[in-house]
């Protein structure tokens, strides 16, 4: 650990100590019913102690004082755990805030996009404060400026230093249109210029939301947390009744036994605090914050605790093939001509059709054509490029034919070259009345069967041949999917490929299912189908066309490099833009629930020992025979009760690291997880306090 980290830690702890006192404010405490009861108990015990000091009390002041002191410690320890958990987030929020300082902004008066494009950095603007920017305003940034607000780039291309948000120092390229058009306020422009349309009013930007989340200031209780709180409140009421009714029982017993004194209020308070689930009650909020924090440590910003919790419940993972399952992108590896066309002719046309195609696949086609046939990509005037869209699922180029280029005709007529997914291309071929595509189909199928991706190329609606694109499945994916299957999670690969290709890759990667030829509508439909079947769906996405599916999914992780709509629709943003992170997110969600469950079990199991410590002590004066229940042979009634109270307080401190780290999750079946956790936290919770209380008792006797 470096010195810097150590001081960072020290700072967190110092601040947490102060915070734990500030959090004693009853208005804050009342949010947590269990610990609120402890606080009320502490106040009562303190009053009793003062009464005892004035020698009007029921018990020796020393004993009451010690109980009161340790009850206060119980509350403080619980507050401390919460404060420590918040500490990390606060530190991070502070550095984020620094990035968010009020910056001057160059506001641009509303102009047409075309003219903005033309004027670029010279556009007319006025300098205003960043807080004056409103949604849909336009602003200009030039190299060296801090971006004043979140937004969508409308014009320009530039490199941006996003390290303030992501912690990643390598600059990223941002440009208008496409999937990399979103920018975040607080980041710095390194080169060129951008004109940006503001997407959020001040205070509602991405950074603001992030600060809120990491600080936990607007932390809402999650559904499971609410349910658990109800259960804990139920237990608290049970024990409240158990302890409150013990006073009349004890009074009656004293009167009929004719000896001893009734149970004192101090002992009743001590018993109550020991019995109510203070361990889980005290650590509950720390567990939730720490879960969020573990997300942040992995560079994932969850927009709500609810999303983190839902991640643990996910049973279907929709994974994009590209970048997640396969390495990078498909590469063109072969040109296979059909119908007597030469390979060179096919390569030539494929290259022309791909000139404007900036996707990695498109570029790889250009590169392959150059490598194999020495063809240089050349742009001609009058070329009209047809861009790829998710609906047409093809791209290409139209240009007037010329003798320079291989092709039909001798000038004048328009040559139109298209490349695209085989099924759309086959439709195109058929639409042009060229029914003879059997050769093409055969080639397509043979490529698809090997897991490759065929791209058909046509000229004027006639088949020329197929480009063979190949996917490379990432190493270790098969094992990860097997892990997920053990966790009870089904993996579905989403791809635009045809079913045959998809099946081959799915088999190679070991996913459970796949959605081939996925359109945004098909994705949305698939998610809805799973949800109707009662399943919880998680997915990642970055493009604007992913936004509807992201909004529908229960856990939606947007890549930070993604578009603004994608980031808006998602409930988590991965700053590293790493699609495989979904698996870690699921694990963090599960850990969060497991930690709560395990500590609840521990807390309840602890009660057994506490009963046996306090009950004989409480009634010893009335019924001395009850001392045979004192299995632990605790020295005196006072030491027994005090030991139980001290144990109860110290166990909170002892479990803070576990609460922050989380109960480790292993991808084994639910039955085995339950067995292991029951053994550790159930049986452990049963035995630990017997040993702990006995040790503290021995220590107390030794000290006295």
């Amino acid at each position, binding site marked *: 650990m470096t010195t810097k980290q150590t001081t960072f830690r020290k700072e967190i702890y110092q601040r947490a100590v102060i915070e734990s006192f500030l959090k004693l404010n009853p208005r804050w405490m009342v949010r947590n019913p269990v610990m609120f009861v402890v606080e009320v108990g502490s106040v009562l015990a303190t009053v009793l102690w003062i009464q005892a000091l004035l020698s009007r009390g029921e018990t020796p002041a020393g004993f009451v004082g010690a109980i009161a002191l340790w009850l206060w410690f119980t509350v403080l320890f619980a507050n401390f755990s919460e404060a420590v958990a918040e500490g990390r987030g606060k530190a991070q929020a502070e550095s984020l805030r620094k990035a968010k300082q009020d910056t001057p902004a160059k506001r641009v008066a509303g102009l047409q996009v075309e003219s903005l494009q033309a004027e670029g950095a010279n556009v007319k603007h006025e300098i205003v404060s960043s807080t004056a920017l409103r949604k849909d305003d336009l602003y200009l940034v030039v190299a060296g400026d801090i971006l004043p607000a979140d937004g969508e780039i409308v014009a320009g291309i530039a490199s941006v230093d996003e390290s303030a948000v992501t912690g990643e120092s390598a600059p990223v390229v941002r440009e208008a249109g496409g999937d990399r058009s979103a920018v975040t306020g607080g980041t710095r422009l390194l080169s060129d210029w951008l004109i940006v349309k503001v997407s959020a009013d001040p205070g509602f930007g991405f950074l603001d939301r992030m600060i809120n989340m990491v600080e936990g200031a607007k932390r809402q209780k999650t559904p499971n947390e609410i349910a*658990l709180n109800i259960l804990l409140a139920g237990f608290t009421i049970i024990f409240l009744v158990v302890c409150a009714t013990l006073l009349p029982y004890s009074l009656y017993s004293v009167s009929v036994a004719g000896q001893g004194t009734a149970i004192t209020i101090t002992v009743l308070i001590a018993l109550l605090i020991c019995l109510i689930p203070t361990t889980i009650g005290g650590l509950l909020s720390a567990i939730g914050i720490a879960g969020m924090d573990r997300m942040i440590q992995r560079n994932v910003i969850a927009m709500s605790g609810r999303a983190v919790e839902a991640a643990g419940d996910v049973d279907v993972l929709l994974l994009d093939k590209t970048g997640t399952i396969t390495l990078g992108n498909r590469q063109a590896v072969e040109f296979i001509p059909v119908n007597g066309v030469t390979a060179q002719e096919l390569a030539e046309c494929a290259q022309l059709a791909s000139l404007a195609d900036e996707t990695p696949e498109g570029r790889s086609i250009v590169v392959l054509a150059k490598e194999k046939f020495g063809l240089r990509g050349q742009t001609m005037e009058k070329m009209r490029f047809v861009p790829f869209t998710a609906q047409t699922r093809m791209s290409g180029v139209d240009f007037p034919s010329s003798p320079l280029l291989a092709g039909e005709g001798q000038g004048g007529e328009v040559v139109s070259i298209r490349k695209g997914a085989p099924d759309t291309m086959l439709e195109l071929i058929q639409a042009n009345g060229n029914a003879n595509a059997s050769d093409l189909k055969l080639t397509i199928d043979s490529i698809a069967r090997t897991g490759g991706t065929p791209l058909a190329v046509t000229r004027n609606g006639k088949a020329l041949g197929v480009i063979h694109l190949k996917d490379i499945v990432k190493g270790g994916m098969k094992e990860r999917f097997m892990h997920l299957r053990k*966790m009870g999670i089904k993996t579905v690969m989403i791809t635009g490929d045809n079913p045959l290709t998809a099946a081959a890759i799915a088999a190679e990667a070991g996913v459970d299912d796949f959605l081939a030829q996925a359109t945004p509508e098909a994705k949305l439909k698939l998610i809805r189908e799973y949800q109707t079947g009662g399943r919880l769906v998680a997915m990642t996405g970055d493009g604007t066309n992913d936004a509807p599916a992201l909004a529908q999914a229960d856990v939606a992780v947007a890549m930070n490099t993604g578009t603004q709509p994608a980031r808006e629709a998602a409930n988590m943003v991965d700053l590293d833009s790493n699609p495989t992170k979904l698996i870690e997110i699921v694990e963090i969600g599960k850990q969060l629930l497991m930690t709560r469950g395990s500590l609840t079990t521990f807390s309840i199991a602890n009660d057994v020992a506490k009963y046996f410590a306090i009950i004989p002590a409480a009634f010893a004066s009335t019924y001395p025979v009850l001392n045979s229940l004192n299995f632990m042979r605790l020295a005196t009634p006072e030491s027994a009760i005090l030991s139980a109270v001290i144990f109860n307080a110290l166990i909170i401190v002892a479990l803070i690291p576990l609460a922050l780290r989380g109960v480790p999750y292993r991808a084994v079946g639910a039955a085995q997880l*339950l067995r292991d956790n029951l053994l550790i936290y159930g049986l452990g919770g049963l035995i630990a306090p017997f040993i702990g209380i006995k040790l503290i008792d021995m220590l107390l006797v030794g000290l006295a």
Partner: protein
Amino acid sequence: MNIYDWIQPIFYITVLLLLAKPLGSYMARVYQNERLFLDPILAPVERFIYRASGIDSKSEMTWKTYALAMFLFNILGLLFVYLLQRVQGFLPLNPQGLGAITPDSSWNTAVSFITNTNWQGYSGETTMSCFTQMLGLTVQNFVSAATGMAVLVALIRGIIRHTTKEIGNFWVDLTKSTLYILLPLSLVVALALVSQGVVQTFSEYQTVSMLQGTTDADGNAVTEQVIAVGPAASQVAIKQLGTNGGGFFNVNSAHPLENSTPLSNFIEMLSLLLIPVALCYTYGKMIGDTKQGWALLTAMTIIFVALIGVAVWAEHAGNPAIQALGVVGGNMEGKEARFGITTSALWATATTAVSNGAVNSMLDSFTPLGGLVPMWLMQLGEIIYGGVGSGLYGMLAFVIIAVFIAGLMVGRTPEYLGKKIEAYEMKMASIVILVPLVTVLVGTAIALMSEAGRATIYNPSAHGFSEVLYAFTSTAANNGSAFAGLGANNPFYNTALGLAMLLARYWLAIPILAIAGSLANKKKIPVGSGTLPTHTPLFIGWLIGVIVIVGALSYLPALALGPIVEHLLMFK
């Protein structure tokens, strides 16, 4: 203990478990509207009932309507039984010319019978006319049991169904439970009992000459004895089967005309647990996974067998103070010589395991631990088999809590049988567990603090404390057995215990129906390897752990001042 003391409980439990499947599947058929061999006789009757009372048997209810119907039906029953007792002097079938019963006792008895508790502050043969017994009490014996079964069936529907608001029709469930299950079974049991000599007659009480004369308190010679008789067998049958427990005679099944032979005793004991045990199988059958039903039955049986062990052992061990006087053997005080120690202890455990409360021996005279067992079984929440219907739905509330904590431990939002357990279910399940506990503890505290409560504690000692605790435990568990030794037929206890019975019955049934409604409205989640299995030995063990720690340890401080200290003092 001799070999028969071992064989008897083993034989009893074996027969019981063997009957679970046949009766359980029959009941599942009843509720699933499948064809039954009794259809030719009973189906016309059923149709007639619906037609006569204007019930559309096809229409279904939301949980709120269901709960309202259940509650109104029971409240009307309460009023009817109350009035019947108040005016029985003017009504027929009253051979002894018994007069009106006091308002507080009438209230207590009415509540007691509609809530399936059958706590009896009165002495049957000297208080109730045959008319009241038959039209008031016996009718409620049937319908209060059927109410419990109806609520259970509604809960089961909530688990099976998805994305609907309807959980069945209360009137249909009530009619079917009574007509197809309780009536035929009662008929069989009643005939069997009559064959053993249990009395069934409308004739007047018989006066007979005593074999051995005696003298009364004033020294006058007494040579004749009045033997109370009446339509006992029919009431005894349903009292045992419907987990009611209200005896025809004051001494309940210790009375030779209510329980005449070892065989009649065995039949009655079998009837105690029969339906609650079989309902576990019905449950499994109806949810389409019998393993789940067996799992719950196993959890219940493990606790039951362990506690039989404690009770039988404690009674055989007897009281060292009495043994010091030269009396050899176990504790025979308050037990019928006809039945002996094992049978009495076995009965006591069984009658409190289910919320029956019929007795064949004096529980007040049991050893402290022998008496602790019945009390603790009730304090568990009457879920170790429990009342007909009510036992299983109470158990399911514990299952929900066990599933919730265990579900979190495996890292998923907890789910049971494909239904998510969320805040609403936790709220309702917490109420189910909280209400009886609060009723018992607060009720006991009030009794001990008030002059009226303390006045009729005839044994002011740790045992007196046990008696008061037992009275509130028994009523709040809707059991009805008594520790006696406590004068409970007075305005204070009649009122307080009546309230305890009402609170515990409906504050369990209504939240359970709320859970049924909420579960029915949820989506069903398919089972995967991440799903927590709820039929494994591990889960059964966990469930037992939750029941013991949550349901029972809460009573430890109170028990420490009662039976536990009594036990320790006995050996001092």
